[in-house]
């Protein structure tokens, strides 16, 4: 819930201030966004299973984003689409995390009965 509200606020902020990134950074940005999304889902899962650690979350959030963008950039320079690796790994992890979050939420709802 908190995440969705934050997302909406962020999108609104971005539209209002109209921050534009240069042309050539656009593909790397998409990969970085995917990494950030993965971190957020991980944090959601951790907070539900009560083992959330802020330092790990922050380092993962920025570290993953930078690494993903950097790898995509490197892949572009080398002519190898490494960004695909980032897309597959983070995409898969987002689904994994979502599955665990779902399970946790459903179990919580069941135990309340």
């Amino acid at each position, binding site marked *: 819930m908190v995440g969705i509200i*934050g997302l909406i606020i962020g*999108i*609104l902020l*971005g539209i209002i201030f109209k921050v534009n*990134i240069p042309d050539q950074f656009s593909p790397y940005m998409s990969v970085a966004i995917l990494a*950030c999304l993965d971190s957020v889902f991980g944090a959601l899962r951790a907070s539900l299973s*009560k083992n959330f650690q802020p330092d790990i979350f922050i380092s993962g959030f920025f570290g993953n984003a930078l690494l993903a963008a950097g790898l995509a950039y490197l892949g572009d320079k080398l002519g190898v689409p490494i960004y695909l690796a980032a897309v597959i790994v983070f995409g898969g992890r987002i689904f994994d995390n979502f599955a665990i979050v779902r399970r946790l939420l459903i179990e919580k709802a069941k135990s309340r009965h």
Partner: protein
Amino acid sequence: MKNNEANIFLFAASIIIGILISMNISFNKGTTTTFLSSSQYQDAYNYKNQLYSEISSMVNVYNTYEQKLEKYKSIETNKSSITDEINKELEQNNMILGKVQVQGQGLSIILNDADSKYFDNTFDDQFRLVHNTDIIQVMNDLKNGGAEAISINNQRIVDSSEIYCSGPFLRINGVKIAAPFTINAIGNKEVLYNYMMSDENYLKGLMIRKVKVNVTQSDLVRVSAFIGNERADFMKVQ
């Protein structure tokens, strides 16, 4: 407590993600890619080339104006040379407007009604005559082919010229003229000739109708000046 902390971090992180996403979305709006079929691509390519050539011709015009302006500026002190320049421009404009007699390479087209042996007292006789509409079509073709100045039986065609049916005569610039009609046109003679004699041109139709058509290229075609009055009773410069 721990849950609360996690919520705060999640909130901040999702705001950042939201901003990033909206950055990318607003960026993507600017460059929408469309896929073209080969003919569409060809059209777009031609259109691009056309625009480029338009730009280059506009640059040329700009340069001539720029030079003119420079000239005016550099000879600002000398009034008589400015007058000379203005007179030269006036002459140029008069030439374009048809106020002076001009000459140059071009075409001379003579149109006349068909030979009397083709007349057989039927409705077909109408097709053996040169009508005002025929002259208008030929005029349009000439203009399309790049003619710079046109006269018909020494009546200069200007923007106010009418080509009107007046019984057995034509009326151009208020003057009645009779067959044969000699159309003089100044322009690139090769281009004009090839254009006028091409199969889809109106002249071919006239030839099929047995109308006498005589087209000659010439290095020296004279087009007389427009003699008449322009009226400007109602129009005003806006």
